[in-house]
């Protein structure tokens, strides 16, 4: 039997990170005192014992070929101390234990096309997802849209000129694996799924699909004598939740799967409690390879935020101060009825007060 010969997995789980820690990290573990940023892209941490470490942050394309990774390793071996880490935003960090190693390391990274930055009040790398490269349900690509946008935002990545840190995310379907962010770019379908009735019977577990629809718009139905599904198009909110469990319910559409832009998601507890992001623009075409319309809206929002927010105001703090009417005015984005919430508990998003801005 083939199986009998197969290797049994060692269920080792999460590897111990101690062997990988930079020696200064290991030595001062849990004993750091403060940090500063000598320049954008560089963090300087000082421990209670007086030990110091410099971390240099650089952008990557996340989905890297082995040559790129080996190149980064070469740089780490030659210009740093052979230890690196990745951030939650797929930036890479190189640690060095003396200040004079910082400048040569930066020069080498930049020379090899890895922009240094993403710290403090910069626009960091965009958290992103799989898209056409790998996912089975994407309405668009992720890596491409991110590359195109980061090309345009690279100066903001390299400098720290924003009022506070700016975190972006992109997601290639409404499921939004990219998550809440200061600015999130997400596919928004605008038409109900087109059902390939021939396939439903074989491929889809119909009760499960019916249960998956958040607005109960799907009914089992007989189509051409075969068991299939039927969508009440009046109810359907085009979310695409039926598509993963039932691929014949094609939700993606080259024309009608558009982009929406969301702002003001904040996960940190700094100052105000965490906030959900809000939809502020929609109907943006899905236009590969460089999605210029998406970049334009994002840049419009960033420009307004940069010009008007006070220091330490995250995007949500800024809007909290200036109000939504002014946000739409300053960004030039249209406020339409679609931006008024009508989902569960939507009432909390209505203005239940006489607080008005003129």
């Amino acid at each position, binding site marked *: 039997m083939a199986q009998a010969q197969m290797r049994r997995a060692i269920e080792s789980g999460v590897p111990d990170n101690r062997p990988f820690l930079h020696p200064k990290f290991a030595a001062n573990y849990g004993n750091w005192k403060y940090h500063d940023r000598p320049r954008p892209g560089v963090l300087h941490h000082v421990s209670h014992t007086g030990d110091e470490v410099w971390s240099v942050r650089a952008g990557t394309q996340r989905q890297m070929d082995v040559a790129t990774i080996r190149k980064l390793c070469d740089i780490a071996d030659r210009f740093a101390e052979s230890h690196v880490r990745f951030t939650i935003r797929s930036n890479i960090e190189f640690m060095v234990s003396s200040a004079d190693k910082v400048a040569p390391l930066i020069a080498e990274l930049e020379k090899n096309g890895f922009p240094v930055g993403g710290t403090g009040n910069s626009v960091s790398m965009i958290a992103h997802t799989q898209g056409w490269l790998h996912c089975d349900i994407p309405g668009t690509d992720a890596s491409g849209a991110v590359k195109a946008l980061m090309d345009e935002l690279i100066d903001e990545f390299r400098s720290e000129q924003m009022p506070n840190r700016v975190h972006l995310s992109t997601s290639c379907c409404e499921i939004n694996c990219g998550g809440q962010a200061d600015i999130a770019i997400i596919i*928004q379908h605008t038409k109900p799924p087109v059902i390939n009735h021939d396939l439903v019977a074989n491929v889809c577990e119909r009760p499960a699909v019916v249960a998956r629809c958040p607005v109960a718009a799907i009914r089992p139905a007989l189509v051409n004598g075969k068991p299939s599904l039927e969508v009440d198009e009046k109810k359907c909110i085009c979310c695409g939740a039926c598509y993963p469990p039932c691929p014949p319910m094609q939700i993606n559409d080259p024309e009608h799967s558009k982009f929406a832009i969301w702002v003001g998601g904040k996960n940190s507890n700094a100052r105000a409690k965490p906030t959900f992001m809000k939809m502020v623009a929609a109907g943006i075409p899905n236009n590969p390879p460089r999605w210029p319309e998406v970049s334009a809206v994002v840049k419009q929002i960033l420009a307004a935020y940069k010009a008007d927010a006070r220091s330490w105001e995250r995007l949500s703090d800024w809007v909290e101060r200036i109000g939504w009417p002014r946000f739409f005015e300053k960004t030039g984005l249209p406020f339409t*009825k679609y931006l008024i919430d009508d989902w*569960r508990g939507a009432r909390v998003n209505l203005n239940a007060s006489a607080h008005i801005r003129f």
Partner: protein
Amino acid sequence: MAKQMHPTPMLDALESGPWPSFVTGLKRLAQDKDYVVDLLGQLETSYRTRKGYWKGGTVGVFGYGGGIIPRFTELKDEAGKPIFPDAAEFHTLRVMPPAGMHYNTDVLRQLCDIWERHGSGLIAFHGQSGDIMFQGATSENVQKAFDELNELGFDLGGAGPAVRTSMSCVGAARCEQSCYDEATAHRTVINSFLDDIHRPSLPYKFKFKFSGCPNDCMNSIQRADMAVIGTWRDNIRTDDALAKKWFAKHGMNELVNDVVARCPTKAIQLKEIKDLKPGASVSTVALNDTHALEIENRDCVRCMHCINVMTGALAPGKDKGATVLVGGKRTLKIGDLMGTVVVPFMKLESDEDREKLVELGQKIIDFFAENALEHERTGEMIERIGIVNFLEALEIPIDPNMVSSPRTNPYVRMDGWDDEVAKMKAAKKVA
């Protein structure tokens, strides 16, 4: 001299203490009225058994379908006879007050005289909806009392599924914060819906309330289907003389802690006079020779706080009007609802302005009458159908001041986006 009092040991306990006692008042009435002797008997029973003994019924005045709250006793002996027969009927007339609840002694005395003749002699100034409640008349006397009250110039208020009696604050009559003529708006609106007050035929009650400014002394936001709250669009007005007087009395700490720091949007800043940056949307007021307040009116949400603290030194602007909110009510049956903004601003100066307010009310009531379920208030209806459908039916343009935040949920079908944007742009060009 009426019949002998029933023992009321529990009620008697409410005669001691410094606050005016309604029991003492009832006892005073009982001296002349068997009616009230028996009322006290029933009330004492309630206190003893901790149970209520009234039930409703149908009593009205000729030509009207509402305005009377009928009460028949349920406290009966085994033979089904009332234990306190003289108080077997105890109906209330709900009578609409003048706006702002102003009276002179002459009219008050006349109201007393009428009610002494035909009723229990007990009057509540006022019910929580604003009615003068003439409490306690027999079925027979209700019409008589009404006829006399009506001749004096008063009319019944609402009850049941009807437009209800309304309230407006003292406002323009005495209050410096008033942003519109509350009394005239109140009277104009309510008197346009008398048929809906007197002949209940809506899905459920509908309440208007009028407050002259966002202090909302009428609690309209939590209690009115349609709340009309005064506000202004231009800059906060200032008065250096009063500001200096205030500052001399209260000092810097109070200024910082009570005024500057409490502005919800940080629209007010303390500045040295030399650093002031005047501008089209900026108000400034001097506190002394060196210091001043600077208010960025575009950040101000018209909360009233700074104006309340420094009355006269700061004041609402001159371009006044009102915000209209819809849907406030109590808990039944989806939980308490506050009104929410449907018209961020409308002028309320001329008769034409007020006519527009009446029209808005009419449109809302018509829509309510046609679309609400039975026993469903406007707030619940809007919750069910969605505010956007409501606004579209009323042909009210969408405005970001209607939301505290845009949608946090992608669950919406939006293939009409481009059309909406085009419509908006077209509308802007016209305006």
